[in-house]
């Protein structure tokens, strides 16, 4: 391996760099990543926010572990906060009180930790929405989408396990709800509850167990998933929006060194700064107002952290009785009755559907479109009306359940009947997604038509012209080639009717696929073609003409 002219570094930095380089092969890494190209777009930053809030969580969480004691042993609070002096509580609660009132900056760190946790789940969610609505999950990135979905679930798990640690009244009632839901599971529920709580609820084991999950198991899994996630980003290279100069075979953007690294690195500090600002000014989880956990009291208007809201809301929406029939159905087995607690189990179904559909969507879309090509170019959401419609339907479904978790607060704030709020949300639970799909798809199609019009007739120039007859009209200016390319360069899926296989047989699955394809792509707007543009220029058509037979433009 030795060469005749061995490199001899001159500066001391050079010597250190050379020492490392000759042992780990740093030059190759610099060559690989130093000038790697990353496309730039504001919507790509949500994933960064997620990553950075996770780093902030690790930093602030590590600090908190030095002071927190996850013991459910009984103690009497003797700290600085007078109103709770002499109150009986668990050591976990007392040590959280000490962090808040007797460790300088401890309250600030708790606030930073809680706020960045809320932001972390939010950033992961918004990042996933970005990926969904732009079609970034398509081949070859389906597996990374699954990793991302796993990260979303892990983020919620991390949040919930941490939320319960202070052993305060609010989080204790949250645990009690979890216990109730677990007990509703058929056959195994009673035992899972007993195993989780180390006996009966609340027991003295749960906080220590959640603590282990919160500071070790879940973060380790999250780190592992983030590692896989970023590794796949490097393998795939980042997607980019369609535009002049951007093709499916290239990446256009800024090199890591220096621009991208500077922007992304600087952005970490900005995110940290924003979290610090929020934590300095806005109180979160004031456990001293709630007091220690006690199975008897509960505060009115209890709310879970936002990311658990949709599941809690589903629990609230479900009626316990249909007429006089209790949904807590006792199955008449020969050895006696067993309870099938449908009023708790059914609300878990929407969550399962939503998460299942989320994971499966890349394959569903591939099945409907039979599109097995690699996609590195992103769709504008309007250019995939079917997908946008489905996504909006999902978001609305989620939001209805999420709103339901605040049904009591909606009722008290707007002075309406709590029962009516629930009834309306029950209606919206079914109608909301359907209306959302229709409206979102129509809006997307309308925006596509608007794009066509702009391409064919130019943008409004802002120049009002008066004709010799006295009529006013606005001049339209032709788009430059770059702007025009942005509006015309997209793919518009067409209906693919069911096809026969090699034996001439049309399978039932294929028929279903054809029907779904028809439902999704029947209404479509095709991109403007050069000949259409020429025709539009030729005889100044009054409106958009139907020049392509499958461009469904109904005016």
């Amino acid at each position, binding site marked *: 391996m030795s060469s005749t002219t061995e490199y001899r570094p001159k500066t001391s930095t050079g010597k250190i760099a050379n020492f490392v380089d000759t042992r780990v092969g740093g030059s190759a890494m610099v060559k690989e990543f130093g000038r790697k190209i990353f496309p730039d777009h504001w919507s790509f930053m949500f994933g960064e926010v997620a990553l950075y809030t996770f780093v902030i969580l690790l930093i602030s969480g590590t600090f908190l572990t030095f002071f927190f004691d996850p013991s459910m042993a009984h103690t009497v609070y003797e700290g600085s906060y007078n109103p709770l002096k002499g109150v009986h509580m668990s050591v976990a609660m007392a040590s959280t009180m000490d962090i808040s*009132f007797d460790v300088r900056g401890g*309250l*600030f760190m708790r606030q930073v930790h809680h706020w960045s946790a809320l932001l972390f789940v939010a950033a992961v969610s918004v990042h996933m929405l970005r990926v969904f609505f732009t079609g970034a999950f398509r081949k070859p990135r389906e597996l990374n989408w699954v990793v991302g979905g796993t990260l979303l679930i892990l983020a919620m798990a991390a949040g919930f396990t941490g939320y319960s640690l202070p052993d305060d009244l609010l989080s204790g009632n949250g645990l009690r*709800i979890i*216990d*109730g*839901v677990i007990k*509703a599971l058929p056959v195994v*529920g*009673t*035992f899972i509850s007993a*195993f*989780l709580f*180390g*006996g*009966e*609820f*609340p*027991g003295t*084991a749960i906080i220590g167990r959640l603590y282990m999950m919160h500071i070790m198991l879940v973060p380790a899994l999250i780190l592992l998933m983030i590692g896989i996630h970023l590794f796949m980003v490097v393998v795939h290279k980042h997607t980019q929006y369609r535009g*002049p*100069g951007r093709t*499916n*075979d290239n*990446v*256009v953007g*800024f090199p890591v060194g*220096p*621009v991208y690294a500077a*922007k992304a*690195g600087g952005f970490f*500090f*900005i995110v940290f*700064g924003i979290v*610090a*600002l929020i934590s300095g*000014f806005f109180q979160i989880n004031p456990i001293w107002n709630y007091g220690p956990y006690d*199975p*008897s*009291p*509960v505060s*009115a*208007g209890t709310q879970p952290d936002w990311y658990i809201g949709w599941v809690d809301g589903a*629990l*609230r929406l479900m*009626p*316990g*009785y249909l007429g006089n029939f*209790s*949904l*807590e159905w006792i199955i008449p087995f020969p050895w006696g009755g*067993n309870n099938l*607690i449908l*009023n*708790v189990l059914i609300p878990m179904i929407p969550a399962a559907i939503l998460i299942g559909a989320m994971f499966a969507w890349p394959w569903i879309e591939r099945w409907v479109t039979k599109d097995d090509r690699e996609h590195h170019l992103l769709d504008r959401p309007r250019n995939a009306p079917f997908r946008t419609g489905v996504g909006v339907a999902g978001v609305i479904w989620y939001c209805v359940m999420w709103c339901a978790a605040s049904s*009591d607060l909606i009722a008290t704030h707007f002075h309406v009947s*709590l029962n009516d709020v629930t009834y309306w949300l029950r209606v919206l639970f079914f109608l909301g997604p359907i209306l959302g799909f229709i409206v979102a798809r129509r809006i997307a199609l309308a925006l596509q038509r608007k794009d066509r019009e702009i391409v064919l007739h130019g943008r409004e120039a802002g120049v009002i012209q008066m004709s010799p007859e006295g009529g006013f009209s606005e001049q339209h200016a032709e788009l430059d080639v770059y702007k025009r390319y942005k509006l015309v*360069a997209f793919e518009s899926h067409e209906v693919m009717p069911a096809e026969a296989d090699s034996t001439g047989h049309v399978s039932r699955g294929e028929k279903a696929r054809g029907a779904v394809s028809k439902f999704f792509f029947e209404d479509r707007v095709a991109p403007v*073609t050069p*000949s259409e543009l020429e025709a539009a220029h030729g005889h100044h058509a009054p409106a958009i003409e139907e020049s392509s037979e499958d461009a469904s433009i109904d005016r």
Partner: protein
Amino acid sequence: MGDHSHGSPNDPGTVAKAGQGSVESFQDPGLPPHRPRLADVDPRAAKRAERQVTLLFVVSILGTALFFVAYFVVGRTSTFSGIRLQNTLLGLGTAFAMMGIGVGIVHWAKTLMPDHEITEMRHEIRPEAERQEAEAMIGDILDETGIKRRPLIRNSLIAAVALAPIPAIFMFRDLDRTGATANEIVDRLRYTMWDKDTKLVRDPSGTPIKASDVQIGSAFHVIPEGLDDTEDPLNEKAKAVVLLMRLDPREMEISPERETWHHDGIVAYSKICTHVGCPVALYEQQTHHLLCPCHQSTFDLTQECKVIFGPAGHALPQLPITVDSEGYLVAQSDFHEPVGPSYWERG
């Protein structure tokens, strides 16, 4: 799209279909021309940007200083307003310290670092040649193990590997630290510490309640006497808490077997919601409704706490009560059914 290179057996990709010719889509005009920024062409603008970036870094240094002011000058404080002031100043200090660096670096990148977009080609994720090599390699590896030729080894290994993790599952049996058998785990959900002649006492003071103290329209949060002397008071409390209310007996519909469960209109019901176990803490005096603040299950006191709204699936269990010789309220027995959320074995 004049690109026909991705042919397949069904679609050789050599026939240009109508609507797919290159005239039917616009040519990519390529990257738009680069526009120089002010700092690229005007050295004064560049100098100005440099000063702005430096200023932002100085803001960060001041922010760090503010943090120390909050930490040491506000110092150890035990008043609530002191804590609040310290928290706000620590937040402001950290925010300036971080934002100064962050905004400074981003501003530096956007004004002074080159903003030419660069094009890089993507590589095929899995070139066919590599697949063939890898396939051959795996084939060789499998051959060398001989696993295909020796099914006995393969099958016994599968059996061993399938069985080996099962002990790990059984290891978790003692997660329930009480050592209870399966039947005991189920049974303990059925019973609370209420028993014949257990006094009803106030939560949390523990003072007993005289029937004459309970006025019509009043409500008491009640625990069994001796709760704090039990081994796990919270566990017992989580099952035993009771709401005590009094209403005019004529307003109540009482089923025949429960005629003797109340004392002169004083009734006791489990406070644990039958939905998922929150305390049913809200009593509406006028309507005689009990409302669970967690999921809004509503129980009608006049109809033996039957569910009239919300997700709960059965009525709140009633605790039969009476008075002892001194006039204190006591239980007649335990609840006649399990309290709290339902479960598979509840029956």
